[in-house]
């Protein structure tokens, strides 16, 4: 079974977000990394880019597939995980920790209300 930590918020597109202050750290879920298989490439956005909620901000590629990344919340990119450029497989091995992808300064914290909690996300992936 996929690991779905409590305390994070989730999108139906399989991104997670962990909010501290007004900054959200975003990555893809354990379920998503498992579905993708071996991640071999991550395309990161430039720091400073301003994103609308649900806007595509990057790409994660496995050996076989290319998947778009969407931000669950609106805001400005304040940091990207550059370590993924050299070690994209970290997304597989540590989806919720070292495999984080971007940090976004939230422009509308209300966006979080539209996201799923762990229980709701778990129910969502069971339907998939």
């Amino acid at each position, binding site marked *: 079974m996929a690991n779905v930590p409590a305390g994070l918020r989730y999108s139906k597109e399989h991104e997670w977000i962990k909010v501290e202050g007004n900054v959200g750290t975003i990555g893809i879920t354990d379920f998503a990394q498992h579905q993708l*298989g071996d991640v071999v*490439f991550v395309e990161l956005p430039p720091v400073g880019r301003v994103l609308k909620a649900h806007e595509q901000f990057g*790409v994660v*590629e496995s*050996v*076989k597939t290319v998947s778009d990344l969407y931000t669950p919340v609106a805001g400005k990119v304040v940091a990207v995980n550059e370590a993924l450029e050299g070690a994209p497989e970290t997304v597989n091995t540590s989806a919720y920790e070292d495999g984080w992808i971007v940090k976004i300064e939230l422009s509308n914290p209300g966006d979080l209300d539209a996201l799923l909690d762990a229980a709701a996300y778990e129910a969502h992936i069971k339907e998939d």
Partner: protein
Amino acid sequence: MEENLKRTPLFEMHLKHGARMVPFGGWEMPVQYTGVIEEHKAVREQAGLFDVSHMGEFEVKGPQALDLIQLVSVNNASKLAVGQIQYSLMCYENGTVVDDILVYRLGENHYWLVVNAGNIDKDWDWITYCKERAGLTNLELTNISHEIGQVAIQGPLAAKILQPLVPNVVLDELKFYWAKTGVSVAGIRVPVLSRTGYTGEDGFEIYCKQEDAVAIWEALLEAGEDDGLVPAGLGARDTLRFEAKLPLYGHEINDLVTPLEAGLGFAVKLKKGTDFIGRAALEAQKANGLEKKLVGFEMIDRGIPRQGYEIAKDGTVVGSVTTGTMSPTLGKNIGLGYVPVALSELGTEFDVIIRGKAVKAKVVETPFYQPRYYR
């Protein structure tokens, strides 16, 4: 999963091994078990076991069997000794590809044609049409695809693992692209055992009765356990064949390109002595020179090329990618694609358009991985 997908006799085995099943060429097939890269490396370093029961087999028997094969196949099947196998293609009159095939000569007037799973119906229609048009009646042509299962064991340890299961065959004497009939594998009589494969490694393909596929699969896995034999899916099969530059129908070859453009001229025998379908067109293309050509390339800047991405030079689209990925063996982002002949020289730089951005690449030598066949 889509409706109406066919299942191989090994379907339950795939589920048992935790495979992720995907649609492929009308079949529900395992794309991976533990992971594409891990399975890929197992085949390069030890051995992997593939279910390739979806492949098609046509049996051709009788006095005019060779005549039919010579008509539809661009290679020269009259050169085959009994037990020998040949890579070939079937072409349309305009020289473009119907399918690539293996021609097995199993007896004096007895052949098998092994065709791609997704093309079985199309190929069958094509061959029966050609047979009737040419008035070839003194032969028996049978589609035996639904009776035959196929298991491939591939990798440097394949022979070591298989040998104890085939005590009546000396595998050292069975060279690459040769086959044996009437062999028993793990005590089960199989129609054909051949030293062939689609990975760039040494290996064998075991054609069995569908109902025997599970027993053979399990016997091989058990025999190979200590040597690191693992089930391998279509994902690894694709990256393995790609590194060895083995073409895949629907990628490098299709009905819009010719074998000459695809770099498969070695299989086209224009002077084989009998006419074949597509010969005139291929002869003319050879005489006039090619306009486009399949090349291998390596990304210089960051990005992974994928099938269908455009190739551009100085801002103008000049070609497209047929296969691309991160190569598990080389750890590089590499691809195959069609470009104008003027851009096919080693070292030539061009751009691959990845999500709207021009990403630099250069032509490199192929195959990316030098196959290790047992000759």
